[in-house]
């Protein structure tokens, strides 16, 4: 087993311990030790497939991504809510294919999750091998808005890669690796 694998397991154990302590809601030695024991048991009994994470986290880009994500969520929520109360209008939609530029497993998952949390877009299917997301978009008026939305997804992907991506992924965006 390589060192990277052990580091991943350590991160997973740490995450599980934090969740355990938060569930108990008290920061005592007993809950901490209990958390570590439970985490080790969980990781031994239910081993996860290895997730390769070669990226580095860039705090500024993370903030930019989070800020944009929150505004997107508020705007889109308002739009969907307005659509719900609009009578005499049947919203039309579209299923569009968006080929991502740097499809790693983790990048694909994060883009899909972030996209799904914003109202108005829903992942219908994923082509993991070719890195294509099939997105259902609510309230599409025509080809223009489809293209605009496709560009929005690619922008979201590049924000995520700027925040969490590896140099190889940055390179795939067509930029000089940071």
């Amino acid at each position, binding site marked *: 087993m390589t060192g990277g694998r052990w580091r991943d397991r350590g991160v997973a154990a740490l995450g599980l311990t934090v*969740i355990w302590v*938060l*569930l108990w*809601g*008290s920061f005592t030695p007993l809950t901490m030790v209990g958390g570590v024991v439970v985490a080790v048991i969980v990781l031994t009994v239910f081993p996860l497939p290895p997730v390769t994470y070669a990226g580095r986290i860039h705090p500024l880009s993370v903030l930019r991504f989070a800020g944009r994500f929150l505004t997107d*969520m*508020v705007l*889109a*929520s308002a739009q*969907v*809510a307005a*659509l*719900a*109360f609009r009578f005499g209008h*049947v*919203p*039309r*939609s*579209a*299923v*569009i*294919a968006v080929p991502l530029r740097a499809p790693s497993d983790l990048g694909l998952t994060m883009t*899909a*999750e972030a*996209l*799904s*949390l*914003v*109202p*108005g877009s*829903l*992942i*219908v*299917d*994923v*082509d993991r091998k070719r890195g*294509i997301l*099939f997105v*259902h978009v*609510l309230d*599409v*008026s*025509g*080809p223009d808005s*489809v293209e605009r939305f496709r560009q929005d997804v690619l922008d979201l992907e590049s924000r995520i890669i700027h925040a969490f991506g590896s140099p190889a992924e940055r390179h795939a965006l067509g930029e000089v690796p940071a």
Partner: protein
Amino acid sequence: MTGVLDVVAGVCLIVGALLSLSAGMALMRFPDLLSRMHAATKPQVLGLLLVLTGCALRLRDAVDITTLLLVAVFSMATAPVAAHMIGRAGYRAGLARKDLLVLDELREADDRR
């Protein structure tokens, strides 16, 4: 200071509740399964976050806030997965109304396969 926090908490709770109401309305009014999935899974995320924020501002207790934080994290992590599973199953079962789709690139991709 407590007064201000209470007002902010109240606003968060009311706006969150209104968003959840609009989600319910959308669930009733949207025309097909995929559109309804948006209503069933999305506005509630922001609505829930606002309600949780409101509760946290009102409770002001470390134990409660950590629990609220976990609720927020897990609902944000699981909502997209649930939406994806139902949407995908529904689409494959032919429940999506094709006449409402301006464009369907998934069917084109399926046809090529």
